[in-house]
């Protein structure tokens, strides 16, 4: 007898529906799984066999052909254990169900018949809804995550027997429901604050601008000047995630299996700080069946690269395209996949190998050649893509002894949120837009300069020999500065401030 069960498969951050077809025939006993299964799908044979016998059923005799249709895409992961087990039981007529057509089923089986959680539930539920299916059977642990998709009846199940009970009976199974507001309740608690950092008002202002407009920033300073401290506190001043953004971000974490236990929606902007030994595949994603890398895990959040020039050259240069396009496309033999990569890059570095080149107390011991070699690790095109370059000097003695002063994160965040709201209005409530991702058409439309500002910009371009991209960057940054001040047109002071954040351009 032939049985078809609906399930889903992942392809990057998207999913598509598949059919698990199980056909039983008389003959020598055995099973074969076809439809481009990978090793973990093939292994499900043994798990399914044990789970069926340990759930009190008899593993039926005969030959089973299991097809995962469409047969031209590669299926991976253990998520088809449950549909295969149900298919085998149905095709041997040990269970009879009239509901198979309406439900979509996935789950990994453990040998005793319990259903284990799987990765990538959220994208799969999104595509299930898109294809007009109404009901999903999901592992209990994944229930919250699936219920994020409204209009889908989510039936959480614990064991193979639960699934059979749902499919064969009609006793009141209630769809799992969640309350969105619960997720955002704990959102704004941090154990760090911007007021912890003494002095560094220049850097704090630059970080505020970066947070408001989503600009990339490079901090240069001697060891111990507070670069890392500032970067870590950056998450406390970025605007809150909207629900759409949170869902988009959760998709990435769901596919990677990185969702924290008991938390099915990521509500804080991520802060990723990979070590500088990271490979380019670790940074942008990779693998023969590509998985997202750090840059996608930092989507809508912060990617902090400490000791910037220590990163491998090839790792850094792959950042060029995603910093510009805000997505990363990875091409492998099985096809090309696009992952989101809308990040705020915070890079920190010393001015020279010994670290004290710009310091006014300690003597630098580096030769000119060493310094040149250190800086040559950062290519012009990469620096060009970083909007704000700032110096973070050593704290003065009296600043060091003073009590922490300066504004709290809450105050700064309020201003940042105001600026973000202005941007939301400007970009028609598309939360994925910010000043830093404006197209050149949008720049011409939204960056209106006063005559005085126009003059200043013109002379700055000539004097600093800026590239066309730098020109756009200055306009974008000054747009954010004007937004922070609540002004419609960009004035000369905004241009002046934006220009001084391009200190590395000035060095030539």
């Amino acid at each position, binding site marked *: 007898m032939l049985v078809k069960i609906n399930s889903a498969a992942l392809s990057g951050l998207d999913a598509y529906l598949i059919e698990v077809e199980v056909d039983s025939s*008389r*003959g*020598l*006993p*055995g*099973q*074969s799984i076809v439809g481009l299964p990978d090793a973990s799908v093939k292994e499900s044979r043994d798990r399914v066999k044990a789970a069926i016998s340990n759930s009190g059923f008899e*593993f039926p*005799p005969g030959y089973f052909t299991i097809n995962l249709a469409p047969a031209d895409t590669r299926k991976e992961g253990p998520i088809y254990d449950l549909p295969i087990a149900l298919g085998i039981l149905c095709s041997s007529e040990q269970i009879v169900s009239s509901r198979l057509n309406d439900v979509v089923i996935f789950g990994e089986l453990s040998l005793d018949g319990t259903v284990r959680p799987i990765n990538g539930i959220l994208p799969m539920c999104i595509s299930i809804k898109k294809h007009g299916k109404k009901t999903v059977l999901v592992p209990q642990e994944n229930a919250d995550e699936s219920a994020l998709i409204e209009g889908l009846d989510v039936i959480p199940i614990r064991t193979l027997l639960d699934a059979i009970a749902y499919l064969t009976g009609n006793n009141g199974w209630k769809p799992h429901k969640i309350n969105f507001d619960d997720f955002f309740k704990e959102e704004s608690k941090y154990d760090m604050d911007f007021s912890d950092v003494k002095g560094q008002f220049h850097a704090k202002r630059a970080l505020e601008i970066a947070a408001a407009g989503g600009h990339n920033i490079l901090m240069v300073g001697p060891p111990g000047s507070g670069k890392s401290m500032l970067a870590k506190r950056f998450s406390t001043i970025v605007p809150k995630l909207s629900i759409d953004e949170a869902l988009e971000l959760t998709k990435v974490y769901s596919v990677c299996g990185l969702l924290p236990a008991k938390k099915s929606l990521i509500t804080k902007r991520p802060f990723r700080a990979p070590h500088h030994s990271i490979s380019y595949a670790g940074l942008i994603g990779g693998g023969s069946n590509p998985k997202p890398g750090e840059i996608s895990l930092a989507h809508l959040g912060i990617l902090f690269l400490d000791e910037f020039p220590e990163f491998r050259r090839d790792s850094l240069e792959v950042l060029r395209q995603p910093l510009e396009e805000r997505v990363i496309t990875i091409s492998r033999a099985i096809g090309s996949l696009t992952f989101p990569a809308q990040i705020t890059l915070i890079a920190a570095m010393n001015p020279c190998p010994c670290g004290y080149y710009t310091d006014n107390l300690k003597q630098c011991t580096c030769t000119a050649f060493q310094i040149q070699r250190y800086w040559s690790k950062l290519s012009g095109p990469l620096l060009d893509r970083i909007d704000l370059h700032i110096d973070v000097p050593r704290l003065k003695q009296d600043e060091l002894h003073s009590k922490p002063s300066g504004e709290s994160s809450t105050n700064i965040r309020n201003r940042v949120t105001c600026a973000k709201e202005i941007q939301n209005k400007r970009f028609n409530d598309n939360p994925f837009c910010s000043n830093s991702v404006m197209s050149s058409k949008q720049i011409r439309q939204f960056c209106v300069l006063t005559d005085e500002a126009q003059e200043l910009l013109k002379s700055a371009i000539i004097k600093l020999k800026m590239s066309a991209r730098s020109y756009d960057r200055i306009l974008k940054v000054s747009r954010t500065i004007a937004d922070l001040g609540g002004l419609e047109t960009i004035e000369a002071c905004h241009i002046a401030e934006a220009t001084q954040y391009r200190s590395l351009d000035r060095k030539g």
Partner: protein
Amino acid sequence: MSKNTSKDIGTEGEDAASKYLISLGYQILERNFRSSQGEIDIIAKEKEFLVFLEIKNYSFRSYGSPLGAIRYHKKQSLKHAANTYLYKNNIKNTFCRFDAIGIYKSKSGKEFVEHIKNAFVIN
């Protein structure tokens, strides 16, 4: 007079297994069925099942269960022989099963039969 060759031990085991199977109501169809690549010790019928049996006769227990002696190559040759049998006798649409039987003798000469139904499947 005759020396106990391993073939004799095998035949002895198969005789014992046949007796055991008949006592369970199996109908023995064939013994020592050979194909070009393998041999099936006993082919029997139990209800709707056609059962292919591999018999292992051990002089003592320490070699472990009969399943342990059936590895990949043995499975392949059994599969080949079974397919040949099905083809020659034009048997279709019948549930088949591979069983393994281990026969042990204790020191006192008492026989033990270990019967593993559905011992393995063809993948």
